[in-house]
């Protein structure tokens, strides 16, 4: 593997950029691996990377039905943050934030992490109280959080609507300065390159259609291009967790829903941070190319379609205009959708399953991207040691039967409400 550096850029420029080597191989699969990871998105590739790097398990394959990062890794709005309050979540997401902060150096691949800060706006005194409580929990766990008054928010974000006519007047905000954005494709590619260079086989264009069984234990996967045997099979398939678990006879506490994201035409630098509206589900940041990246609510009905409906486009843009009237004349350039594995309490699973040989990483709802490094790190630990790390110890399937849901939003067992 070529080590990327300023020197390598210079040297390759001299040879007309014709001598760059491939970032990862396209190998023929072996007949058997120690671990087969299903799903070549950020989480699957990160799991492979940390399995190889932290635990020396390199006889690993990542199987992807499409292309790397072509699912939710390439469809999210690229925001990273660690402002979680519930025990079980807080330290996990902070581990992720810490891994993000050094990820480019660790991978020798620029994931373009930009810690531009994130504001969660509050519009009622009750929301301010909740924000204060969240901020205190974060600070008690060593995570940065600041609470701002309306005046301070107005000084920092003067382009929001502070007029008498604002539909939801801004009361204040909670702010995390270490939050920000990262380039989502680069995250998949960086982890892929790091895993590949340590011996992991990345097998694209290969869809898992079933499992191989041996005495009640999963012993590999069937794919549309032949069987592959495995000591352990690990699922990182986001919205498709449900039917891949079902093939193994497992029913999961989640539903698959469709979430859209949007980008406007390029605009002069305006939003130098990440802003979440507190009155409706809406958030905005600005990409390096200048487009405003907008996110909103689910389409609300179960869907595997990877395309959204127009009513939610209108709803999201109405929220955008309520918050930032100045962007009302911007044209929407593109919108797209991904399929989310919406769990019953809004929190994920990184766990062994009741099926021997099968491991599950899923239930990320719409918060999977920020979790990518810690998800891979903790899942690798769980697979290698056959027990969870303390940071993912609560992300089990049996938390529902034990009465230990991690309901960050307090919305109850209604997947489209999280």
């Amino acid at each position, binding site marked *: 593997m070529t080590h990327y550096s300023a020197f390598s850029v210079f040297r390759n420029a001299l040879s007309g950029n014709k001598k760059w080597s491939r970032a990862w191989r396209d190998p023929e699969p072996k007949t058997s691996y120690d671990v087969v990871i299903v799903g070549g998105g950020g989480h699957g590739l990160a799991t492979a990377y940390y399995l190889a790097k932290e635990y020396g398990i390199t006889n690993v394959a990542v199987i992807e039905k499409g292309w790397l990062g072509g699912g939710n890794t390439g469809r999210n709005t690229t925001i990273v943050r660690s402002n979680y309050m519930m025990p079980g979540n807080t330290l996990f997401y902070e581990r992720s934030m810490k891994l993000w902060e050094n990820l480019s150096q660790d991978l020798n691949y620029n994931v373009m992490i930009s810690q531009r800060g994130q504001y969660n706006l509050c519009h009622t005194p009750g929301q301010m109280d909740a924000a204060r409580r969240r901020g205190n929990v974060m600070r008690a766990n060593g995570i940065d959080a600041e609470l701002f008054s309306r005046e301070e928010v107005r000084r920092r974000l003067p382009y929001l609507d502070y007029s008498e006519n604002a539909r939801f007047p801004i009361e204040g905000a909670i702010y995390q300065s270490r939050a920000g954005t990262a380039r989502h494709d680069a995250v998949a590619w960086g982890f892929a390159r790091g895993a590949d260079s340590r011996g992991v086989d990345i097998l694209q264009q290969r869809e898992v259609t079933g499992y191989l069984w041996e005495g009640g234990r999963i012993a590999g996967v069937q794919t549309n291009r032949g069987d592959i045997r495995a000591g352990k099979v690990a699922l990182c398939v986001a919205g498709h967790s*449900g039917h891949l678990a079902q093939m193994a006879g497992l029913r999961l506490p989640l539903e*698959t829903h469709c979430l859209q994201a949007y980008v406007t035409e390029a605009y002069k630098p305006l939003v130098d941070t990440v802003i979440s509206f507190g009155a409706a589900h809406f958030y905005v940041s600005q990409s390096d190319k200048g487009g405003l990246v907008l996110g909103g609510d689910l389409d609300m*009905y179960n869907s595997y379609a990877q395309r959204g*409906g127009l*009513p939610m486009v209108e709803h999201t843009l109405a929220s955008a205009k309520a918050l930032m009237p100045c962007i009302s004349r911007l044209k929407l350039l593109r919108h797209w959708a991904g399929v989310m594995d919406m769990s019953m309490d809004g929190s994920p699973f990184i766990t062994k399953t009741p099926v021997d040989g099968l491991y599950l990483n899923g239930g990320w709802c719409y918060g999977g991207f920020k979790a990518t490094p810690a998800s891979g790190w903790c899942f690798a630990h769980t697979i290698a040691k056959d027990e969870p790390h303390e940071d993912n110890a609560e992300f089990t399937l049996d938390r529902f039967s034990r009465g230990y849901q991690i309901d960050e939003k307090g919305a109850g067992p*209604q997947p489209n409400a999280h």
Partner: protein
Amino acid sequence: MIRIDCPICGLRDETEFTYGADANVRRPAMDEAEMQPWLDYVFFRDNPRGWHREYWHHVQGCRQWLVVERNTLTHEIRSCDLAREVAA
């Protein structure tokens, strides 16, 4: 835009409706003492990739609850009935 053929109002846009939930889920008998049926009822779903029976509420129309059979891969709808007639 999904369009739903309400048995009372006719073909209407999805914006008139609110999505409810999976219509195959059944509440256990109230004297059910085992935990597992309640656990299944509250938390676990089939989450099918394909045809899905689900509740919709025609909240800005006749205000009836409907059971719609809709394909989660294509959003195609093949039946729509009044919940009170088919759900029981």
